[in-house]
């Protein structure tokens, strides 16, 4: 009887922290809610209640180096505890036109400009550039539903929105 208790306690104290550590450092699969990344993610959300599940790679964001056009998941700067999934539009040092083309914002050091693909998206256009440290994963693949199984492509915005100091 005692050995069984010991066995169960020993297994739980290993399996629970190991799983949590794995999910925290390597990656996990998360459901995408909302229409902010339409039509790239959740394209049918208005018609059917089927949401996409994406694989979030956490190991790859340790270096905090991003490309323009990648899809990342980040903690919301406005509602702590909420997670957002957005596309990286501009990196630090870039100038970026806001969505309504009213003004140019220069992205400060250590920040990125994130936007959803859909025009009704709560993103940097409302809360400004976000610190890179808020990013906690990179969305690499859609893993569910099987019909939408694909790798997520990196597609930067058109050149006229983003003014990069390193562009030729």
């Amino acid at each position, binding site marked *: 009887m005692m050995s069984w208790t010991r066995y169960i306690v020993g297994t739980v*104290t290993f399996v629970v*922290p190991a799983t*949590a*550590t794995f999910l925290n450092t390597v990656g996990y699969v998360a459901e995408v809610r909302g229409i902010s990344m339409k039509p790239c993610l959740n394209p049918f959300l208005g018609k059917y209640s089927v949401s996409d599940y994406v694989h979030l790679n956490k190991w790859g964001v340790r270096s905090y180096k991003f490309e323009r056009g990648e899809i990342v998941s980040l903690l919301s700067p*406005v509602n702590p505890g909420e997670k957002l999934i957005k596309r990286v539009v501009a990196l630090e040092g870039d100038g970026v036109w806001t969505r309504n083309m009213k003004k140019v914002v220069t992205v400060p050091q*250590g920040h990125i400009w994130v936007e959803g693909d859909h025009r009704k998206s709560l993103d940097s256009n409302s809360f400004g550039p976000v610190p890179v*440290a808020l990013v906690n994963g990179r969305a690499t693949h859609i893993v569910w539903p099987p019909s939408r199984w694909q790798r997520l492509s990196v597609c930067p915005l058109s050149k006229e929105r983003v003014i990069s100091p390193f562009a030729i």
Partner: protein
Amino acid sequence: MAAAPVSLMTRIGRRVFTLVKFGCILHCMTEYVGTFAVCHGISMQPTLHSGDIILGDRLAITRRKLENGEIVLCKSPEDPFMYVCKRVVAMEGERVFNKGWYTKIPKGHVWLEGDNRDFSHDSRSFGPVPYALVYTKVFYRIIFKDPNAPDMWDRASNGIFYSAISLECYITDTATSTPDHFTLHLGCWSCVGRRNTLSLIFHACDDFGDRTPAACVEGRNHGVLNKGVLQVCQEIYCNALQLLGSAG
């Protein structure tokens, strides 16, 4: 009954398994319960000194039990590899006076300031910080070193510099026309960040052996780490002289 012989591979395997297990438990502890850290820099003086060990309470952050006046460890909004240790001055919705006007803290943000207001790089320069960047609430401090020990300024934090360079300095005060002789000790260390961050702290050392900080200059993103150490020191030394001159 004699114990069964255990092969070397099994013993190594068990040792590795134990290590992995404790690594995972440690990760979960620091991520969900609490953590500890070592302070560097002068921005939280006189509350915290370089070399102090602080204990952080992570649960207070996840349960949103943060109040004004508490010290937090927070990821720097300018450098994701760097943690800054500051005091919460205002929470969301409140107003703070900064640079001549009142700033309203936006939703989900906090305003952080160091206790050593003259030598602190905080919300007054980089603005309000998202609450999601706050890592732990600092609730306990362990002092291993006498804060008045003279060599505390010469410590290096992450292996970029391990020695302090001192430069003799003669500043002539034009108002009183009496030359002021003192040695500037370049106690230089980088902040805890790893990416192109270099902050040099200068300490005027007068005859009484007082080592109060005279100037603090941060070099960032100018490729400073690729230049020679001496060249950087000379450049920043000139800047510090200007700073000292402007301070009177």
